[in-house]
């Protein structure tokens, strides 16, 4: 590397102090699975880098009705928790074993599309991000965190320190469609969570990945489900309208028109996983 300084703080205050001292030229890195390939190819040549692997931001705890996931908790740690099963599914389909041992939940929010699979699940779970800066911490909904392609609400003097997910017993489902079965970028990723009131849907969350500048909520599709019994017609209608909620792009993995078609198919499949069966299991 042309890197002249590599900092490995042992605490959040130390990390914030290094960030304050070096400002926006400091490259902040957690798992390294996004930053290191660019540095290795000579496409990124930072002067100063801070690694967060040893800063103590990797605990996963269940407190106050929420699952609190440290920003540098690895995807393997997410795979090992059983508090929120859909997060295990999201982690399992991301990367490979060695990558999951290094890649972090927080880092997944900064991964360019078509990456960011775990963020899609977090979005469907109404996660919040906790940002820490010189004056303290603040929380905001993950849905408000992304502002555009590779842009977000993180201020230059802040670090992402935690993802906070409300504990829920709402049924949730996940699918990732890639060109291979494993270790592959997504053509489309879908996460859905439903809240039932009796036999009708009271509220819905459908999150999509790899079909926009960042993970997005398919809000029209969500609205289309409310008040329905999630029968085949409701599923088909929601799946169709989801294609209007996304802004797919063309890359080496798939074209924009193909991604849009796959949104309809895989929103449908995820909702079918959540459709009532003849003998509904206790909700």
């Amino acid at each position, binding site marked *: 590397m*042309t890197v002249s300084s590599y900092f490995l703080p042992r605490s959040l205050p130390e990390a914030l102090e290094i960030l304050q001292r070096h400002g926006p030229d400091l490259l902040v890195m957690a798992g390294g699975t996004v930053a290191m390939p660019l540095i290795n*190819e*000579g496409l990124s040549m930072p002067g100063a880098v801070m690694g967060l692997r040893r800063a103590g931001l990797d605990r996963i705890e269940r407190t106050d009705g929420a699952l609190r996931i440290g920003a540098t908790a690895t995807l393997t740690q997410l795979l090992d928790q059983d508090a929120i099963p859909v997060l295990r599914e999201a982690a399992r389909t991301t990367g490979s074993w060695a990558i999951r041992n290094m890649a972090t939940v927080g880092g997944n929010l900064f991964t360019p599309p078509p990456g960011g699979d775990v963020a899609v699940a977090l979005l469907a779970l109404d996660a919040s991000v906790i940002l820490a800066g010189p004056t303290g911490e603040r929380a905001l909904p993950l849905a408000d965190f992304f502002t555009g392609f590779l842009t977000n609400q993180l201020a230059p003097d802040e670090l992402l320190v935690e993802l906070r997910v409300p504990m829920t017993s709402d049924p949730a489902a996940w699918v990732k469609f890639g060109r291979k079965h494993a270790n592959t970028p997504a053509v489309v990723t879908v996460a859905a969570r439903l809240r039932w009131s009796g036999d009708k849907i009271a509220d819905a969350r459908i999150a999509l990945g790899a079909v926009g500048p960042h993970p997005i909520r398919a809000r029209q599709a969500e609205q289309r489900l409310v008040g329905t019994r999630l029968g085949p017609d409701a599923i088909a209608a929601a799946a169709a309208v989801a294609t209007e909620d996304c802004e797919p792009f063309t890359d080496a993995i798939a074209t924009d028109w193909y991604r849009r078609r796959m949104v309809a198919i895989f929103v449908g499949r995820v909702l079918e996983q959540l459709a009532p069966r003849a003998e509904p299991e206790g909700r």
Partner: protein
Amino acid sequence: MSAHLNVVGQSVARSDGIGHVTGRTQYTTDRTFPGMLHLKMARSPLHHARIKGIDLSEAERVPGFVRALTAKDVPHNRYTILGLIGVEPEEEFVLAEDRVRFKGEAIVAIVAETEEAAFEAVSKVRLDLEELPAVFDVEEALKPGAPIVTHWGNNTFMYEGHPCRRVRLGDVERAFGQADHIIEGVYNTSPIEHAPTETTGCIAVPEANGRYAVYTNTQALYFSLDNTAIILQVPGNRLHFIGGTVGGGFGGKVDVIVEPIATLAAMKTNRPVKFSYSRSEEMQVSSTRSAWRIYLKDGVTSDGRLIARKVTSYADSGAYSRQTPYALTKHAANAAGPYNIPNVSIDAYCVFTNRPPTSAMRGFGITMASFALEVQMDKIAERVGVDPWTIRFLNAYRNGDMKPHRKLAEDATLIETMQAAATLVGHDLPDEFKAMTSAPRAGSHVEGR
């Protein structure tokens, strides 16, 4: 017969197996030498451009920068990959001169103390390029007014004065008039990257006696050595090429791209120089299998016999020849397939576009033809109303048949191979096909066998 065979018919451990499973096998870049320098290439960001100027002043100021090489530093700045076996002209540059013809073409070789310094210096090479129109499709490249990629004025390789390889047997047009069915199809394949797990690379090391040891993972040690000698204008005995285990080649390491410039850098610096492709260079710049477009027009009788086949095929050689003109020749000889067809016309073009140059890959020149031909045979079977086995047994070639390029078939085994395949998958062939052999037909040119 097998009574005293010690190897044939036995399971024999690989002689390099222990090295592979212990990691002791040495690959090209598993070596490091004191004072070794790193070579990284400044490459064209454009598909087609005129080079107006190169400014190295910023690059030279990068700490760790040692040396830059441009076209004028290369004694004979042309690859002659197949020139040694008579396939010419030489037209690819070691380092680009006045024009670049594909995105990723090498322009300036930067040599530095560390990889990071080399990357940084490359990023500071200032290229003054005038973008030119580019062409990416084989048929577009042959239209009047298309951007011309080559230096000889048209976008095809010339075969003895002709823009394509031509094969003629009988009279296809007359035979089409006699056919009961005409079946046409167009088949496209994409470029395929070999993607060996080990990337292309070499290390050139000055030796005490004035020779240069070049450790390389080329598949073609003598191609590499002879070409390096010609490019550097030195006698072959000043070069000591050392190969060994190649971490995957599949035809992708036969193009002699890294050794000449690395050896030149070692000569100019009197230090070992390593030039090893990054993964993105291996994907973007190293040769791929050619993309191919094949038009087939077949004349077939109502009982399923192929009496005429017209093939028009286009190989995308990319910006330079490498080995594609040779592949095309092999392709042309085989483009009608292993079938007995009395009237054949083949026009096979080696076309230049502004894509990365293409070259050898397993089944070189034939694999794409097989894809097109066998899908076409299934189409014919469907049209005529027979099954895919039948159409092939009816038309399979045998010893003594005249192949379209005027050679008699020898060692034909299509029939026997299909019979073995049918047995393997449990398909019961009609007795007529079970009894068939590749023995010459009655009255053919060849007796016996």
